[in-house]
């Protein structure tokens, strides 16, 4: 399965944010989406997952156009999205948050889903009965990712998972994403922490003002003088 974004434009009210953005993510690869604050990374993810409408261009998943398809349908087609700000259900326990991630799947698979997520994030198992709103920032991020994984996406988009985490925890979370990639999932990772994300990513795109200005393998991007100057502070 493959996510193909071609010449996408989108924005809010009259303010256009994306100007002809194109990118691809296939199963089994971890792709970093990099860019300065306000470049349009979050907007790109929102448009792809159907939270906001595309103004132009196309999004295809597995060769099927997603035009006019609701966010919920896209999730069912295999597109996962861990949104900016985590968007947990704060007054529900960890386990109910996770179950909601599998709400549309055959209900008898839910136990297997929980097992899978608890194995990835043992911390969540310990805290299964605790209200999501009372978790630490790192635990909340694990829960947000775990909840998305419950829906068994083929392509997972993650918006700034390391935000507010200690360097050690950030590394741990990104390693987990690298692991689900190795199991065959495609991951599109939006990160402020460029050095860390290029360590785990296979490829990457750099966007400015809503379109791609640079792309290549993680090694190429790490070695690129522009990237080094703008993002790696070398």
């Amino acid at each position, binding site marked *: 399965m493959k996510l193909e974004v071609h010449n996408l434009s989108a924005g809010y009210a009259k303010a256009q944010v994306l100007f002809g953005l194109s990118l691809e993510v296939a199963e089994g690869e971890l792709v970093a989406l990099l860019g300065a604050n306000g470049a349009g990374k979050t907007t790109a993810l929102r448009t792809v*997952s*159907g*939270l906001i409408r595309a103004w132009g261009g196309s999004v295809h998943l597995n060769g099927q156009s997603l035009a006019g398809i*609701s*966010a*919920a*349908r896209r*999730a*069912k087609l295999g597109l*996962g*999205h861990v*949104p900016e700000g985590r*968007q*947990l*259900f*704060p*007054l*529900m326990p960890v386990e*109910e948050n996770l*179950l*909601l*991630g599998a*709400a*549309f799947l055959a*209900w008898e698979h839910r136990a297997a889903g929980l097992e899978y997520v608890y194995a990835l994030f043992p911390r969540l198992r310990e805290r299964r009965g605790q209200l999501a709103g009372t978790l630490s920032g790192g635990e909340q991020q694990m829960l947000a990712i775990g*909840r*998305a994984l419950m*829906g068994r996406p083929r392509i997972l988009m993650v918006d700034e998972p390391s935000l507010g985490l200690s360097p050690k925890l950030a590394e741990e979370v990104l390693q987990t994403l690298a692991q689900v990639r190795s199991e065959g999932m495609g991951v599109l990772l939006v990160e402020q922490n460029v050095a860390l994300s290029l360590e785990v990513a296979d490829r990457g795109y750099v966007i400015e003002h809503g379109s791609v200005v640079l792309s290549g393998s993680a090694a190429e991007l790490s070695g690129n003088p522009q990237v080094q100057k703008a993002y790696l502070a070398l």
Partner: protein
Amino acid sequence: MELLLQTLLNGMLSAGVYALVASGLALAVGVVGIVNFAHGEFLMIGAFISYLLFASRGIDPLVSLGVAAVAVFLIGAITYYGLIRPVLSAPELNQMLLTFGLSVLLQNLALLLFGADTRVVSPPYQGSTLSLGGLSFGGVPLAAFVLSVLILLGLYWFLGRTRLGLAVRAVAQNRLAPGLLGIETQRVYLLAFGLSAALAGVAGVMLSVMLYASPTVGFAFTLKAFAIVVMAGLGNLRGVLWAALILALAEALVSTYVPGGGGWVEAVFFLVIFGTLTWRSWRRA
């Protein structure tokens, strides 16, 4: 002592119906996010369904409960689809104006169709009483209380134990995430608003026997339900039960012990809102 016990008992029996109406409103406010001033009109429709079925066919209110539940659910769903959904992202004041307008419209429609008279559904068991150790229960209020409790238990089971109920609670806590998790939020809103209306409609059937059906019967219940939801705190469905009990007991005490209390009963809800808001802001300060 006996008077006090009798008063508290009467209060408790009315609390069941109050909790039913207020739980419905709590769903509209907490899940759909709409301040629905027309909530009492769903109750009024339920009361008239009961009256019409009884007057034309002699159908027992117990049967009408089921008919009203389905019919008012559908009316609620249509209202959501046609009126509420288009204004969900509009400013709150506009939403309130819309539901207030709907309330006035439905009251006048009922006035046009049925006239202003109050109409009571009087099945053979209407005046039955039971007595227990010097206290007396009206059979109908007791049955209404028991039915309300059963319906609320069903509601809690649905919200707490089913997948759909889980989705309803989720939508109440975060509007963005459910869509990303494959949950069709619009359908959840539709269901929640339909349920909200149906709860009021069922209460209306009970009130058609205990009180009466009339075009304006719902209005007082809208106000009382708001008092209960405010007291319980937004999104706190369990609190609704306690708040309903407190309001009903306060009303019963006022009507028994305050001279000329009958006239003051209908103002107790206001005292409750005022008291709650004052206490909250005092505690926060």
